[in-house]
Protein backbone atom coordinates (compact mmCIF):
# COMPACT_ATOMS: atom_id res chain seq x y z
CA UNK A 1 0.00 0.00 0.00
CA UNK A 2 3.01 2.29 0.30
CA UNK A 3 3.92 2.25 -3.39
CA UNK A 4 3.67 5.76 -4.80
CA UNK A 5 1.21 6.42 -7.65
CA UNK A 6 4.07 7.56 -9.89
CA UNK A 7 5.72 4.16 -9.56
CA UNK A 8 2.45 2.41 -10.36
CA UNK A 9 1.99 4.54 -13.49
CA UNK A 10 5.60 3.78 -14.53
CA UNK A 11 5.03 0.05 -14.06
CA UNK A 12 1.82 0.18 -16.09
CA UNK A 13 3.60 2.04 -18.90
CA UNK A 14 6.45 -0.47 -18.81
CA UNK A 15 4.10 -3.44 -18.94
CA UNK A 16 2.08 -1.88 -21.77
CA UNK A 17 5.33 -1.35 -23.67
CA UNK A 18 6.28 -4.99 -23.16
CA UNK A 19 2.84 -6.17 -24.31
CA UNK A 20 2.92 -4.02 -27.44
CA UNK A 21 6.54 -4.53 -28.46
CA UNK A 22 6.42 -8.24 -27.74
CA UNK A 23 3.39 -8.66 -30.03
CA UNK A 24 5.05 -6.63 -32.81
CA UNK A 25 8.24 -8.70 -32.61
CA UNK A 26 6.47 -12.04 -32.26
CA UNK A 27 4.11 -11.52 -35.21
CA UNK A 28 7.14 -10.66 -37.36
CA UNK A 29 9.12 -13.60 -35.94
CA UNK A 30 6.22 -15.99 -36.50
CA UNK A 31 5.96 -15.01 -40.16
CA UNK A 32 9.73 -15.22 -40.60
CA UNK A 33 9.96 -18.64 -38.89
CA UNK A 34 7.03 -19.91 -40.93
CA UNK A 35 8.65 -18.60 -44.10
CA UNK A 36 12.04 -20.12 -43.50
CA UNK A 37 10.50 -23.46 -42.54
CA UNK A 38 8.66 -23.42 -45.87
CA UNK A 39 11.88 -22.54 -47.76
CA UNK A 40 10.74 -18.99 -48.51
CA UNK A 41 11.69 -15.64 -46.98
CA UNK A 42 8.52 -14.39 -45.29
CA UNK A 43 7.92 -10.61 -45.21
CA UNK A 44 10.75 -8.70 -46.92
CA UNK A 45 9.24 -5.45 -48.24
CA UNK A 46 8.71 -3.05 -45.32
CA UNK A 47 11.99 -2.20 -43.59
CA UNK A 48 15.10 -4.38 -43.48
CA UNK A 49 14.00 -8.04 -43.71
CA UNK A 50 10.41 -6.91 -43.24
CA UNK A 51 11.02 -5.74 -39.64
CA UNK A 52 8.46 -2.95 -39.90
CA UNK A 53 5.81 -5.12 -41.54
CA UNK A 54 3.85 -5.65 -38.27
CA UNK A 55 3.90 -1.92 -37.57
CA UNK A 56 2.42 -1.25 -41.00
CA UNK A 57 -0.20 -3.95 -40.40
CA UNK A 58 -0.99 -2.43 -37.02
CA UNK A 59 -1.57 1.01 -38.53
CA UNK A 60 -3.75 -0.57 -41.20
CA UNK A 61 -5.83 -2.38 -38.55
CA UNK A 62 -6.23 0.87 -36.57
CA UNK A 63 -7.70 2.51 -39.65
CA UNK A 64 -10.25 -0.21 -40.33
CA UNK A 65 -13.87 -0.21 -39.28
CA UNK A 66 -14.90 -2.28 -36.28
CA UNK A 67 -18.10 -4.12 -37.20
CA UNK A 68 -20.58 -5.67 -34.79
CA UNK A 69 -22.84 -8.23 -36.47
CA UNK A 70 -26.57 -7.55 -36.18
CA UNK A 71 -27.26 -10.94 -34.63
CA UNK A 72 -24.40 -10.71 -32.13
CA UNK A 73 -24.95 -10.33 -28.41
CA UNK A 74 -23.61 -6.78 -28.28
CA UNK A 75 -22.35 -6.47 -24.66
CA UNK A 76 -20.71 -9.90 -24.70
CA UNK A 77 -19.22 -9.27 -28.14
CA UNK A 78 -17.63 -5.98 -27.03
CA UNK A 79 -16.46 -7.34 -23.68
CA UNK A 80 -14.69 -10.43 -25.03
CA UNK A 81 -11.41 -8.87 -26.33
CA UNK A 82 -11.13 -6.81 -23.15
CA UNK A 83 -11.59 -9.88 -20.93
CA UNK A 84 -8.84 -11.60 -22.93
CA UNK A 85 -6.38 -8.74 -22.63
CA UNK A 86 -6.82 -7.24 -19.15
CA UNK A 87 -5.56 -10.17 -17.00
CA UNK A 88 -2.21 -9.94 -18.81
CA UNK A 89 -1.42 -6.58 -17.26
CA UNK A 90 -1.78 -8.10 -13.79
CA UNK A 91 -0.09 -11.41 -14.67
CA UNK A 92 3.05 -9.59 -15.82
CA UNK A 93 3.48 -7.79 -12.50
CA UNK A 94 5.25 -10.56 -10.52
CA UNK A 95 7.45 -11.83 -13.38
CA UNK A 96 11.14 -11.34 -12.57
CA UNK A 97 13.09 -10.77 -15.78
CA UNK A 98 16.32 -9.85 -14.03
CA UNK A 99 17.96 -9.54 -10.63
CA UNK A 100 16.14 -6.28 -10.03
CA UNK A 101 13.84 -6.12 -13.06
CA UNK A 102 10.51 -7.00 -11.48
CA UNK A 103 7.47 -4.81 -10.92
CA UNK A 104 6.41 -6.34 -7.62
CA UNK A 105 7.95 -9.16 -5.63
CA UNK A 106 4.95 -11.10 -4.41
CA UNK A 107 5.26 -14.21 -2.26
CA UNK A 108 2.40 -15.87 -4.16
CA UNK A 109 3.53 -14.62 -7.58
CA UNK A 110 3.43 -18.00 -9.30
CA UNK A 111 -0.16 -18.67 -8.20
CA UNK A 112 -1.23 -15.23 -9.41
CA UNK A 113 0.23 -15.76 -12.88
CA UNK A 114 -1.32 -19.23 -13.22
CA UNK A 115 -4.75 -18.13 -11.94
CA UNK A 116 -4.89 -15.18 -14.34
CA UNK A 117 -3.64 -17.33 -17.22
CA UNK A 118 -6.79 -19.43 -16.82
CA UNK A 119 -8.99 -16.37 -17.50
CA UNK A 120 -8.02 -16.36 -21.17
CA UNK A 121 -10.50 -19.15 -21.84
CA UNK A 122 -13.34 -16.99 -20.54
CA UNK A 123 -12.52 -14.36 -23.16
CA UNK A 124 -12.60 -17.00 -25.88
CA UNK A 125 -15.90 -18.39 -24.59
CA UNK A 126 -17.39 -14.87 -24.48
CA UNK A 127 -16.27 -14.21 -28.04
CA UNK A 128 -17.57 -17.59 -29.18
CA UNK A 129 -20.97 -17.14 -27.60
CA UNK A 130 -21.38 -13.43 -28.21
CA UNK A 131 -20.66 -13.65 -31.96
CA UNK A 132 -23.76 -15.80 -32.52
CA UNK A 133 -21.99 -17.73 -35.22
CA UNK A 134 -21.79 -21.51 -35.38
CA UNK A 135 -18.04 -21.59 -36.05
CA UNK A 136 -17.37 -19.16 -33.22
CA UNK A 137 -19.56 -21.14 -30.82
CA UNK A 138 -17.77 -24.39 -31.72
CA UNK A 139 -14.43 -22.66 -31.16
CA UNK A 140 -15.56 -21.36 -27.77
CA UNK A 141 -16.85 -24.72 -26.58
CA UNK A 142 -13.65 -26.43 -27.74
CA UNK A 143 -11.60 -23.94 -25.74
CA UNK A 144 -13.55 -24.90 -22.62
CA UNK A 145 -13.09 -28.65 -23.22
CA UNK A 146 -9.41 -27.96 -23.79
CA UNK A 147 -8.85 -26.04 -20.55
CA UNK A 148 -10.38 -28.91 -18.56
CA UNK A 149 -7.94 -31.34 -20.16
CA UNK A 150 -4.71 -29.39 -19.63
CA UNK A 151 -5.33 -27.55 -16.39
CA UNK A 152 -4.75 -30.42 -13.97
CA UNK A 153 -1.43 -31.59 -15.51
CA UNK A 154 -0.32 -27.94 -15.64
CA UNK A 155 -1.11 -27.41 -11.96
CA UNK A 156 0.62 -30.70 -11.05
CA UNK A 157 3.76 -29.55 -12.90
CA UNK A 158 3.71 -26.29 -11.00
CA UNK A 159 3.08 -28.05 -7.68
CA UNK A 160 6.11 -30.26 -8.25
CA UNK A 161 8.30 -27.21 -8.83
CA UNK A 162 6.84 -25.44 -5.80
CA UNK A 163 7.62 -28.52 -3.73
CA UNK A 164 11.23 -28.58 -4.94
CA UNK A 165 11.82 -24.86 -4.43
CA UNK A 166 9.76 -24.58 -1.25
CA UNK A 167 8.26 -21.25 -2.31
CA UNK A 168 5.50 -19.68 -4.39
CA UNK A 169 7.63 -16.67 -5.14
CA UNK A 170 8.96 -16.64 -8.70
CA UNK A 171 12.11 -14.91 -7.53
CA UNK A 172 12.81 -17.53 -4.86
CA UNK A 173 12.14 -20.34 -7.36
CA UNK A 174 14.68 -18.86 -9.77
CA UNK A 175 17.21 -18.34 -6.98
CA UNK A 176 16.75 -21.95 -5.83
CA UNK A 177 18.21 -23.05 -9.17
CA UNK A 178 21.56 -21.35 -8.65
CA UNK A 179 23.43 -24.65 -8.58
CA UNK A 180 21.44 -26.58 -11.15
CA UNK A 181 18.48 -25.83 -13.34
CA UNK A 182 15.36 -27.88 -12.64
CA UNK A 183 15.30 -29.08 -16.24
CA UNK A 184 18.28 -31.29 -15.32
CA UNK A 185 16.38 -32.91 -12.43
CA UNK A 186 12.97 -32.95 -14.13
CA UNK A 187 13.37 -33.46 -17.89
CA UNK A 188 10.03 -35.30 -18.13
CA UNK A 189 8.25 -32.53 -16.26
CA UNK A 190 9.72 -29.96 -18.65
CA UNK A 191 8.29 -31.87 -21.62
CA UNK A 192 4.87 -32.11 -19.94
CA UNK A 193 5.02 -28.40 -19.14
CA UNK A 194 5.90 -27.45 -22.71
CA UNK A 195 2.99 -29.55 -24.03
CA UNK A 196 0.57 -27.95 -21.55
CA UNK A 197 1.67 -24.42 -22.40
CA UNK A 198 1.20 -25.20 -26.09
CA UNK A 199 -2.34 -26.19 -25.10
CA UNK A 200 -2.74 -23.13 -22.88
CA UNK A 201 -1.71 -20.68 -25.57
CA UNK A 202 -4.00 -22.38 -28.13
CA UNK A 203 -1.21 -23.01 -30.56
CA UNK A 204 -0.93 -25.62 -33.25
CA UNK A 205 -0.94 -28.67 -32.97
CA UNK A 206 -3.61 -27.79 -30.37
CA UNK A 207 -5.25 -24.71 -31.93
CA UNK A 208 -8.74 -26.24 -31.82
CA UNK A 209 -10.60 -23.07 -30.97
CA UNK A 210 -9.14 -21.31 -33.98
CA UNK A 211 -8.55 -24.15 -36.48
CA UNK A 212 -8.49 -22.19 -39.74
CA UNK A 213 -9.06 -25.24 -41.91
CA UNK A 214 -12.12 -26.56 -40.02
CA UNK A 215 -13.65 -23.60 -38.19
CA UNK A 216 -12.48 -20.85 -40.57
CA UNK A 217 -11.10 -18.78 -37.70
CA UNK A 218 -13.09 -20.15 -34.78
CA UNK A 219 -13.86 -17.81 -31.91
CA UNK A 220 -12.62 -14.60 -33.58
CA UNK A 221 -14.33 -15.13 -36.95
CA UNK A 222 -16.65 -12.12 -36.52
CA UNK A 223 -14.03 -9.72 -35.20
CA UNK A 224 -12.57 -7.04 -37.41
CA UNK A 225 -10.04 -4.22 -36.96
CA UNK A 226 -8.99 -3.58 -33.35
CA UNK A 227 -11.19 -6.33 -31.89
CA UNK A 228 -9.20 -8.82 -33.91
CA UNK A 229 -5.87 -7.23 -33.03
CA UNK A 230 -6.68 -7.19 -29.31
CA UNK A 231 -7.14 -10.97 -29.48
CA UNK A 232 -3.75 -11.24 -31.15
CA UNK A 233 -2.12 -8.95 -28.59
CA UNK A 234 -3.59 -11.23 -25.92
CA UNK A 235 -2.45 -14.42 -27.64
CA UNK A 236 1.15 -13.26 -28.05
CA UNK A 237 1.25 -11.83 -24.53
CA UNK A 238 0.08 -15.15 -23.11
CA UNK A 239 2.90 -16.79 -25.07
CA UNK A 240 5.32 -14.33 -23.49
CA UNK A 241 4.02 -15.07 -20.01
CA UNK A 242 3.98 -18.86 -20.49
CA UNK A 243 7.53 -18.82 -21.88
CA UNK A 244 8.71 -16.52 -19.08
CA UNK A 245 7.24 -18.96 -16.56
CA UNK A 246 8.96 -21.88 -18.30
CA UNK A 247 12.30 -20.08 -18.21
CA UNK A 248 11.90 -19.22 -14.53
CA UNK A 249 10.57 -22.63 -13.44
CA UNK A 250 12.98 -24.82 -15.38
CA UNK A 251 15.88 -22.76 -16.74
CA UNK A 252 16.90 -20.68 -13.75
CA UNK A 253 15.33 -17.41 -14.91
CA UNK A 254 17.82 -14.57 -15.35
CA UNK A 255 20.82 -16.52 -14.04
CA UNK A 256 23.67 -17.34 -16.40
CA UNK A 257 27.35 -16.62 -16.92
CA UNK A 258 28.93 -13.54 -18.62
CA UNK A 259 25.80 -11.80 -19.91
CA UNK A 260 23.62 -9.55 -17.71
CA UNK A 261 20.42 -11.00 -16.22
CA UNK A 262 17.72 -9.49 -18.45
CA UNK A 263 19.60 -10.64 -21.56
CA UNK A 264 19.66 -14.22 -20.29
CA UNK A 265 15.96 -13.95 -19.40
CA UNK A 266 15.02 -12.78 -22.86
CA UNK A 267 17.29 -15.36 -24.55
CA UNK A 268 15.67 -18.24 -22.65
CA UNK A 269 12.20 -16.81 -23.05
CA UNK A 270 12.42 -16.26 -26.79
CA UNK A 271 14.17 -19.63 -27.16
CA UNK A 272 11.07 -21.30 -25.72
CA UNK A 273 8.81 -19.16 -27.91
CA UNK A 274 10.86 -20.27 -30.91
CA UNK A 275 10.26 -23.88 -29.83
CA UNK A 276 6.50 -23.21 -29.77
CA UNK A 277 6.70 -21.67 -33.26
CA UNK A 278 8.71 -24.63 -34.47
CA UNK A 279 5.90 -26.93 -33.23
CA UNK A 280 3.29 -24.86 -35.02
CA UNK A 281 4.94 -25.03 -38.41
CA UNK A 282 5.99 -28.70 -38.26
CA UNK A 283 3.14 -30.63 -36.62
CA UNK A 284 -0.32 -31.09 -38.16
CA UNK A 285 -3.31 -30.32 -35.93
CA UNK A 286 -4.59 -33.16 -33.77
CA UNK A 287 -8.26 -34.10 -33.62
CA UNK A 288 -10.13 -32.83 -30.56
CA UNK A 289 -10.62 -36.37 -29.19
CA UNK A 290 -6.91 -37.08 -29.56
CA UNK A 291 -6.16 -33.96 -27.53
CA UNK A 292 -8.59 -35.04 -24.79
CA UNK A 293 -6.99 -38.48 -24.79
CA UNK A 294 -3.55 -36.88 -24.50
CA UNK A 295 -4.61 -34.59 -21.68
CA UNK A 296 -6.56 -37.00 -19.52
CA UNK A 297 -4.90 -40.35 -20.18
CA UNK A 298 -1.24 -39.49 -20.83
CA UNK A 299 -0.29 -36.10 -19.37
CA UNK A 300 -2.34 -36.39 -16.17
CA UNK A 301 -1.01 -39.84 -15.03
CA UNK A 302 2.55 -38.89 -16.04
CA UNK A 303 2.41 -35.63 -14.13
CA UNK A 304 0.84 -37.38 -11.12
CA UNK A 305 3.47 -40.15 -11.02
CA UNK A 306 6.22 -37.58 -11.45
CA UNK A 307 4.74 -35.56 -8.60
CA UNK A 308 4.58 -38.57 -6.27
CA UNK A 309 8.10 -39.75 -7.14
CA UNK A 310 9.49 -36.26 -6.57
CA UNK A 311 7.67 -36.07 -3.23
CA UNK A 312 9.13 -39.47 -2.26
CA UNK A 313 12.67 -38.48 -3.27
CA UNK A 314 12.43 -35.16 -1.44
CA UNK A 315 11.12 -36.87 1.69
CA UNK A 316 14.05 -39.30 1.82
Amino acid at each position, binding site marked *: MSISPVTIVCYLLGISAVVGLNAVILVWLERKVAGHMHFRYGPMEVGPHGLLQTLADGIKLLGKQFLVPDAADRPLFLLAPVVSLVPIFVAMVPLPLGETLQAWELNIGLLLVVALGLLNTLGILLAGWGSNNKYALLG*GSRAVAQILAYKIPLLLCILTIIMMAGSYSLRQIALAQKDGWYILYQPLLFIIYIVTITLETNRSPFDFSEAESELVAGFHIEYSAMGFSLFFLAEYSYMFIAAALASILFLGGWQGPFLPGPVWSLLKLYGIIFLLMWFRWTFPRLRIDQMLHLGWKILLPLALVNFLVTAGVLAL
Partner: protein
Amino acid sequence: MFASFVHTVYTLAFATILLLVVGGALLAVTARNLIHCFFGLVGALLGVAGLYYNLGSPLLAVMQVMIYIGAVCVAIAFGLTLTRKQGEEGMRPLDIKAAIPVVLVVAMLSATLKSLAGREIVASARKIDESRIGWMLLGDYLLPFELISILLTVAVIGAVTIALINRRI
Protein backbone atom coordinates in the same frame (compact mmCIF):
# COMPACT_ATOMS: atom_id res chain seq x y z
CA MET B 1 -1.68 15.76 -2.29
CA PHE B 2 -0.63 12.28 -3.24
CA ALA B 3 -2.18 10.86 -0.09
CA SER B 4 -5.64 12.18 -0.96
CA PHE B 5 -5.20 11.05 -4.56
CA VAL B 6 -4.27 7.54 -3.42
CA HIS B 7 -7.24 7.57 -1.07
CA THR B 8 -9.58 8.47 -3.96
CA VAL B 9 -8.11 5.70 -6.09
CA TYR B 10 -8.63 3.15 -3.32
CA THR B 11 -12.19 4.32 -2.77
CA LEU B 12 -12.88 4.02 -6.49
CA ALA B 13 -11.33 0.55 -6.56
CA PHE B 14 -13.46 -0.52 -3.62
CA ALA B 15 -16.58 0.89 -5.28
CA THR B 16 -15.72 -1.07 -8.44
CA ILE B 17 -15.37 -4.27 -6.42
CA LEU B 18 -18.72 -3.70 -4.71
CA LEU B 19 -20.35 -2.95 -8.07
CA LEU B 20 -18.91 -6.19 -9.46
CA VAL B 21 -20.18 -8.28 -6.53
CA VAL B 22 -23.67 -6.79 -6.29
CA GLY B 23 -24.18 -6.15 -10.02
CA GLY B 24 -22.83 -9.55 -10.96
CA ALA B 25 -25.01 -11.32 -8.42
CA LEU B 26 -28.10 -9.40 -9.58
CA LEU B 27 -27.31 -10.20 -13.22
CA ALA B 28 -26.80 -13.86 -12.32
CA VAL B 29 -30.29 -14.21 -10.86
CA THR B 30 -32.29 -11.88 -13.08
CA ALA B 31 -30.87 -12.28 -16.58
CA ARG B 32 -33.04 -14.13 -19.10
CA ASN B 33 -30.12 -15.46 -21.08
CA LEU B 34 -28.17 -18.30 -19.45
CA ILE B 35 -24.80 -17.07 -20.66
CA HIS B 36 -25.50 -13.62 -19.21
CA CYS B 37 -26.29 -15.31 -15.88
CA PHE B 38 -23.01 -17.18 -16.16
CA PHE B 39 -20.94 -14.06 -16.70
CA GLY B 40 -22.81 -12.32 -13.89
CA LEU B 41 -21.66 -15.17 -11.66
CA VAL B 42 -18.08 -14.80 -12.90
CA GLY B 43 -18.19 -11.06 -12.15
CA ALA B 44 -19.56 -11.65 -8.65
CA LEU B 45 -16.88 -14.25 -7.85
CA LEU B 46 -14.15 -11.95 -9.21
CA GLY B 47 -15.49 -9.19 -6.99
CA VAL B 48 -15.37 -11.51 -3.97
CA ALA B 49 -11.70 -12.17 -4.79
CA GLY B 50 -11.20 -8.39 -4.73
CA LEU B 51 -12.87 -8.24 -1.30
CA TYR B 52 -10.51 -10.94 0.01
CA TYR B 53 -7.55 -8.93 -1.25
CA ASN B 54 -8.93 -5.84 0.43
CA LEU B 55 -9.25 -7.76 3.69
CA GLY B 56 -5.53 -8.48 3.57
CA SER B 57 -5.36 -12.00 2.18
CA PRO B 58 -3.91 -12.05 -1.34
CA LEU B 59 -3.54 -15.84 -1.14
CA LEU B 60 -7.27 -16.31 -0.62
CA ALA B 61 -7.98 -13.85 -3.46
CA VAL B 62 -5.77 -15.74 -5.89
CA MET B 63 -7.24 -19.08 -4.77
CA GLN B 64 -10.73 -17.68 -5.31
CA VAL B 65 -9.82 -16.78 -8.90
CA MET B 66 -8.11 -20.11 -9.50
CA ILE B 67 -10.76 -22.38 -7.98
CA TYR B 68 -14.04 -20.57 -8.49
CA ILE B 69 -13.35 -18.94 -11.85
CA GLY B 70 -10.65 -21.23 -13.23
CA ALA B 71 -12.34 -24.47 -12.17
CA VAL B 72 -15.97 -24.16 -11.03
CA CYS B 73 -17.05 -21.60 -13.62
CA VAL B 74 -15.20 -23.38 -16.40
CA ALA B 75 -16.97 -26.62 -15.45
CA ILE B 76 -20.31 -24.76 -15.55
CA ALA B 77 -19.35 -23.28 -18.93
CA PHE B 78 -18.55 -26.77 -20.19
CA GLY B 79 -22.04 -27.85 -19.17
CA LEU B 80 -23.55 -24.75 -20.80
CA THR B 81 -21.90 -25.35 -24.15
CA LEU B 82 -23.22 -28.92 -24.19
CA THR B 83 -26.84 -27.95 -23.51
CA ARG B 84 -29.14 -26.55 -26.15
CA LYS B 85 -29.05 -22.79 -26.46
CA GLN B 86 -31.77 -22.08 -24.00
CA GLY B 87 -32.74 -19.01 -22.07
CA GLU B 88 -35.49 -16.92 -23.60
CA GLU B 89 -38.06 -19.68 -23.84
CA GLY B 90 -36.56 -22.17 -21.41
CA MET B 91 -36.86 -20.10 -18.25
CA ARG B 92 -39.92 -19.17 -16.28
CA PRO B 93 -40.38 -15.53 -15.29
CA LEU B 94 -39.83 -14.59 -11.67
CA ASP B 95 -42.95 -15.18 -9.60
CA ILE B 96 -44.07 -14.13 -6.16
CA LYS B 97 -42.15 -16.94 -4.43
CA ALA B 98 -38.91 -15.17 -5.38
CA ALA B 99 -39.84 -12.44 -2.90
CA ILE B 100 -39.32 -14.76 0.09
CA PRO B 101 -35.50 -14.96 -0.09
CA VAL B 102 -35.34 -11.25 -0.92
CA VAL B 103 -37.24 -10.42 2.28
CA LEU B 104 -35.07 -12.81 4.29
CA VAL B 105 -31.81 -11.36 2.94
CA VAL B 106 -32.94 -7.78 3.54
CA ALA B 107 -33.99 -8.69 7.11
CA MET B 108 -30.67 -10.39 7.84
CA LEU B 109 -28.62 -7.59 6.34
CA SER B 110 -30.48 -4.88 8.22
CA ALA B 111 -30.16 -6.82 11.48
CA THR B 112 -26.41 -7.19 10.93
CA LEU B 113 -25.98 -3.53 10.06
CA LYS B 114 -28.05 -2.48 13.07
CA SER B 115 -25.88 -4.53 15.41
CA LEU B 116 -22.78 -2.91 13.91
CA ALA B 117 -24.13 0.64 14.09
CA GLY B 118 -22.26 2.92 16.45
CA ARG B 119 -19.33 0.54 16.78
CA GLU B 120 -15.98 1.37 15.39
CA ILE B 121 -14.73 -1.17 12.92
CA VAL B 122 -10.98 -1.60 13.11
CA ALA B 123 -9.18 -3.25 10.26
CA SER B 124 -6.56 -5.61 11.54
CA ALA B 125 -3.32 -4.79 9.84
CA ARG B 126 -1.80 -8.06 11.04
CA LYS B 127 -0.31 -9.97 8.17
CA ILE B 128 -0.96 -13.68 8.25
CA ASP B 129 1.92 -15.78 7.02
CA GLU B 130 0.63 -18.01 4.22
CA SER B 131 2.81 -20.95 5.22
CA ARG B 132 1.05 -21.05 8.59
CA ILE B 133 -2.21 -21.90 6.82
CA GLY B 134 -0.49 -24.90 5.29
CA TRP B 135 0.95 -26.04 8.61
CA MET B 136 -2.43 -25.73 10.29
CA LEU B 137 -4.27 -27.59 7.51
CA LEU B 138 -1.80 -30.49 7.69
CA GLY B 139 -1.35 -30.29 11.45
CA ASP B 140 -4.12 -29.36 13.89
CA TYR B 141 -6.88 -29.53 11.29
CA LEU B 142 -5.72 -32.63 9.44
CA LEU B 143 -8.87 -34.65 10.13
CA PRO B 144 -11.43 -32.15 8.74
CA PHE B 145 -9.10 -31.55 5.80
CA GLU B 146 -9.00 -35.26 4.99
CA LEU B 147 -12.78 -35.59 5.50
CA ILE B 148 -13.31 -32.90 2.85
CA SER B 149 -11.13 -34.81 0.41
CA ILE B 150 -13.17 -37.97 1.09
CA LEU B 151 -16.32 -35.98 0.33
CA LEU B 152 -14.79 -34.85 -2.97
CA THR B 153 -13.75 -38.42 -3.83
CA VAL B 154 -17.29 -39.62 -3.15
CA ALA B 155 -18.65 -36.87 -5.42
CA VAL B 156 -16.28 -37.86 -8.22
CA ILE B 157 -17.14 -41.56 -7.90
CA GLY B 158 -20.84 -40.67 -7.88
CA ALA B 159 -20.47 -38.60 -11.05
CA VAL B 160 -18.64 -41.41 -12.83
CA THR B 161 -21.29 -43.93 -11.72
CA ILE B 162 -24.12 -41.74 -13.00
CA ALA B 163 -22.29 -41.31 -16.28
CA LEU B 164 -21.80 -45.06 -16.62
CA ILE B 165 -25.44 -45.99 -15.89
CA ASN B 166 -26.81 -44.08 -18.88
CA ARG B 167 -24.11 -45.27 -21.19
CA ARG B 168 -24.98 -47.88 -23.77
CA ILE B 169 -21.96 -50.09 -24.19
